[in-house]
């Protein structure tokens, strides 16, 4: 009896092993070929220079890194990327959080509001960038003509990167809001009722109940928003022309990566920039992971 059971156990184990590997095989093969090996190839590539006319790889050691760190353009792009993130991340999170709290109740028009606020998520960034560029147009744009001002929203090097961040906030607001809404639904209603009895309503209950109980969701949204805001490309590529005087003060790291790797065809230099982005992303993520212990509550 015991022997039979053991035998059944091992045959079950064997079949789980076979089926398990069969099921993960396509995914693992794909991930290894498409993603895992390319990580190492990109790092490897960063030690090489593409020869003239895009031919051949010439080993240059740490030359690309020396050049990247000595390149003012790269430092400026790093600053631009951080400026974009510093505006996009907090504003898109704060506004989305307030909207989610306002919408997290039974009310007329709830799904209409939700549908409209989420709408930019399903529009192509290329189209979004084009219409915002038109809205921001300093001579004929809606914004300047409506408020009778003459701001060079996207060609003044001092403010262009912030104007692009505004587009970023507008585009991602609905996405963050939907994530917060689904997080809010997990907070039991009794908490608010208990707080109300204790005299905490509105703003107070927002800071003492909603924010702490939602903190895991807020943390998740924060981490993913930081990672993807560091990768900003579409909006800058579409809004800022190559002749725009603000180009130098708006181009992001990924924009430079695209420019060097695929326009100037210097894959090695492009690879170096993207390795820099990888390191930056990891550092910021680690900092957030450490920082979360201070303000994220898991129950």
């Amino acid at each position, binding site marked *: 009896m015991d022997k039979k059971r053991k035998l059944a156990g091992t045959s079950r*184990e064997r*079949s*789980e*092993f076979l*089926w398990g*590997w069969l*099921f*993960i095989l*396509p*995914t693992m*093969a*794909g*991930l290894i070929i*498409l993603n*895992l090996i*390319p*990580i190492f190839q*990109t790092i490897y590539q960063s030690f090489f220079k593409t020869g003239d006319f895009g031919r051949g790889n010439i080993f240059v050691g740490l030359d690309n890194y020396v050049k990247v760190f000595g390149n003012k353009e790269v430092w400026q792009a790093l600053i631009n990327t951080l400026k974009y993130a510093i505006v996009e991340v907090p504003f898109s999170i704060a506004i989305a959080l307030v*909207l989610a709290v*306002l*919408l997290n109740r039974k*009310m007329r*028009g709830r*799904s209409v*509001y*939700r*549908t409209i*606020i*989420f709408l930019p*998520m*399903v*529009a*192509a*960034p*290329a*189209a*979004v960038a*084009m*219409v915002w560029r*038109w*809205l921001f147009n300093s001579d*004929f744009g*809606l914004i300047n*003509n*409506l408020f009778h001002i003459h701001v060079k929203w996207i060609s003044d090097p001092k403010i262009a990167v912030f104007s692009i961040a505004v587009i970023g906030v507008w585009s991602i607001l*609905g*996405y963050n809001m*939907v*994530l917060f809404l*689904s997080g809010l639904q997990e907070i039991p209603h009794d908490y608010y009722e208990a707080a109300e009895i204790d005299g905490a309503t509105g703003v107070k209950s927002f800071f003492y109940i909603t924010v702490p109980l939602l903190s895991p969701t807020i943390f*998740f949204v924060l981490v993913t928003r930081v*990672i993807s805001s560091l*990768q900003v490309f*579409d909006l800058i*590529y579409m809004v800022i022309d190559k002749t725009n005087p603000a180009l130098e003060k708006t181009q992001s790291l990924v924009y430079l990566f*695209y420019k060097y*790797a695929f326009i100037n065809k210097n894959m090695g230099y492009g690879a170096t920039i993207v390795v820099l*982005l*990888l390191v930056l*992303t990891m550092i910021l993520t680690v900092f957030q992971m450490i920082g979360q212990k201070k303000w994220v509550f898991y129950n």
Partner: protein
Amino acid sequence: MASMETKRKISTIVIHIVLVLISITMMVPFLWMILTSFKSVTEATAINPFVIFPKVWRTEAFTAVLNNMNFLMLYKNTFLLIFFRVLCAVLTATMAGYAFGRLHFKGRDFCFALVLFQMMVPVQIFIIPQYLMISKMGMLNTIFALVFPGMVTAFGTFLLRQGYMGLPNDLEEAARLDGCNIGQTFLYIMAPLTRSSMVALGIFTAVFAFKDLMWPMIVNTDKDMLVLSSALAKMQGQYVAKFPELMAASLIACVPMIIIYVIFQKQFIEGIATSGGKL
């Protein structure tokens, strides 16, 4: 008690005012896109006085872009990109998610750690080698090239694994007692139960495939192999001050996805909420 009631009413009105204002702000770019696309260039660039609504709703801008750009082909390429990415992602992630979520076997945890690791890396780091692979295969300017980086999905695998882990054990046990092998249990019992995760992954994949700009620009440069987003990027350089035409093309590019979204908005929002929230 009456003051409480009025207080509540006032706060409801204030909330509605805030939400209406925000909703209008969200809609303005879309409305401006529509209004501009029906104007003439002179009307669109008139500032004294500034024109908000077109006097005559002209369709010249639409005829011009429809004549100059082959939107039928762009829709087709974009549809194929989305279709194959969704198909591949859902198929591979459903299988792998089941194995990672329900089966115990040697090497599982190590492989899953690799999946998680890839979710944290910026995607740009894959692009140069992926481009070189496509280029060496001689597959530039094909639908295959567009689909290529999305054939498997670390994120989707994770999402489906979470879906399977939430299912009760007894169904699987019952199927096993009835003599189903693991493959049959997966196909007939377990996979159908994760339909909502599959839909979530499908919508997530479709939206991001539609929005992808850099990869299509890199691999497909032939006029006939562009997708909507890369075609818009290309046209912007050619139609510098023709604002009505730029807006008409943007509108034509966005309308199908917006219509699908409005019809299936519940699935869209729930899909994004579950896929985003489970990470």
